[in-house]
């Protein structure tokens, strides 16, 4: 992808809201449309790149729909933009359509739920570096925890379209079936590798589901499911590449598995960000320096958010 996707010019663009669909208790899928320069800038976004949305002028939802633990924070005036990666990017004529998968976690994402079709939102992007496809890989393993499934759906699409020689398998986990950010109800899902998640199946990518409480698919952390699958596989480590996005603890475990089995692994990190454009230095990720015991802070926004897992100090 690094070769196929030339760098696009980042900037501030206005997007029109196409849809903002609730797909779970806390999960939504926001569809945005860019035209003109914005359409050009976002047309070749790499999976794992992100954008900063200004949600400060979005309205609050009605009081009775605000989750109890967000009631106190809900009234807070939003100042900073919020970073989101993309679950899908599509071009139609001279427009670019993007989907953002998001979860209501605080006052800004709470307001985000009221963005309505036809409205507009200011977007800064595309930002950061996405997932890369190293030469010679035959199998891509996509390991998602919770909302990490978003950018990995975009990656599945790109792998299928641009790298037909690569076979991709997705692993998606959450604490419970309720917390899996997919449109289909998954509580009865089998613990078998099949085309069970439409979000991945539409690109011909098989998937396995895991829940910590066993309410859907594999009972246990998605990393155990992933590790078990690898244990049964007879694929050579160097023919595979792992892409992971999810909570940091999970990424750390994926990185460990990758190291043990000597598999290339890229992780998408998350940090609190103020600017997203390399200025504020807020989003530091501690990274190793080659052949040294020293570490440096790299920026999640500019050096990442996708890092080689060997580089990151978890």
């Amino acid at each position, binding site marked *: 992808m690094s070769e196929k996707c030339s760098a696009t010019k980042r900037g*501030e663009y206005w997007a029109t809201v196409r849809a903002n669909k609730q797909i779970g208790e806390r999960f939504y899928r926001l569809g945005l449309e860019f035209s003109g320069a914005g359409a050009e800038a976002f047309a070749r976004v790499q999976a794992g790149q992100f954008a900063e949305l200004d949600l400060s002028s979005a309205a609050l939802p009605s009081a009775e729909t605000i989750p109890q633990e967000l009631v106190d924070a809900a009234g807070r005036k939003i*100042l900073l933009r919020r970073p989101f990666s993309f679950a899908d990017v599509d071009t139609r004529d001279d427009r670019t359509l993007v989907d953002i998968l998001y979860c209501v976690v605080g006052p800004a994402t709470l307001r985000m739920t009221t963005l309505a079709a036809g409205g507009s939102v200011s977007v800064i992007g595309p930002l950061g570096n996405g997932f890369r496809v190293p030469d010679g890989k035959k199998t891509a393993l996509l390991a998602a925890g919770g909302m990490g499934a978003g950018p990995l759906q975009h990656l599945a699409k790109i792998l299928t379209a641009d790298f037909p020689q690569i076979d991709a398998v997705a692993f998606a986990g959450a604490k419970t079936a309720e917390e899996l950010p997919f449109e289909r109800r998954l509580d009865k899902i089998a613990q078998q590798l099949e085309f069970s998640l439409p979000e991945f199946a539409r690109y011909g990518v098989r998937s396995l589901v895991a829940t910590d409480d066993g309410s859907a698919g594999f009972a246990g952390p998605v990393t155990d499911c992933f590790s078990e699958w690898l244990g049964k596989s007879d694929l050579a480590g160097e023919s595979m590449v792992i892409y992971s996005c999810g909570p940091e603890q999970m990424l750390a475990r994926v990185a460990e598995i990758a190291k043990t089995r000597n598999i290339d692994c890229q992780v998408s990190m998350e940090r609190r960000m*103020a600017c997203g454009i390399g200025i*504020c230095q807020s989003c530091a990720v*501690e990274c190793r320096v080659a052949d040294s015991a020293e570490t*440096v802070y790299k920026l999640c926004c500019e050096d990442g958010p996708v890092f080689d897992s060997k580089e990151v100090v978890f």
Partner: protein
Amino acid sequence: MTVSRFWFMEETVDIPVDFAGIRLANPVFTASGTSGYADELSDFMDVNALGGLVTKSITVKPRKGNATPRIVETDSGMLNAIGWANIGLDAFVEEKLPALDKLSCAVFVNIAGETIDEYVAVAERLATAEAIAGFELNISCPNVELGGISFGTDPSQVAAVTSAVKRAVGEKILMVKLPPAVTDISVIAQVAVDAGADALSLVNTFTAMVVDIETRKPVLANKTGGLSGPAIKPIAVYLVNKVYNEVAKGFGIPILGMGGIRTASDAIEFIIAGASAVAVGTANFIEPGCAVKIIEGVKEYCVRKNIANIKDLVGSLNQDLTD
């Protein structure tokens, strides 16, 4: 800029400012730590449209900065505790200075250190750099263990570091950035001016804390951070007015005013309160091109109010409280 008032005429207005002996195209800067080394903002605005910019803090040696989380948003504001993460003096000279040399706006380098010698070392090395109009002396950063605000809150240290750096900067402008949370900011301002400051910049961020009530821990790894953004603007306007009246006006020392500026109206408030120029800080994170809009807005205001020279607006606070 052109403003059409009548069908038969277009008025144009320039708003140049004299600032500590140099001529600025306009009174709008971007503030230290919010505009990087200029190149980061160039995708979003014409940096040359600015009156000036202040670089991120430079220290003699590169600094990693603090652990994360380094920021947290608050109501209409944010706390940061970056800890002077920067590439260090050598890399700054090699990698950043050549690009700054090409800018036509005034470039000020924010210098920081843990000891007076460290401040002086940065100033000495850059004193002859043509790219640089002057320095902003950071003696008010609340996020480092040594240096920063520990200098700025002690009048004898303010005098010592200001006079030492003043000797090192040669012909360049020395602007001292004041800490806002002191018993009397005018005392610190006066000491800085007496020690040779050519200009004052205020305010730096206010030391603040956010607590996670579930864990009962501070949210920031550094425990405290500096509060910036619209939340601090009225306090900053007050402090600029106070320092203007009590120190700067009498000595003819210009003030670079800042704290929560997002719009032209905000900038004009600071100028009326006594700032000769203003700096846009946190707003650069949200709307990276907003400084240009602010410049245009200040021009429009000058046209609307028939202000021929923006100098006439500086410190023009109307003290007449009758209607």
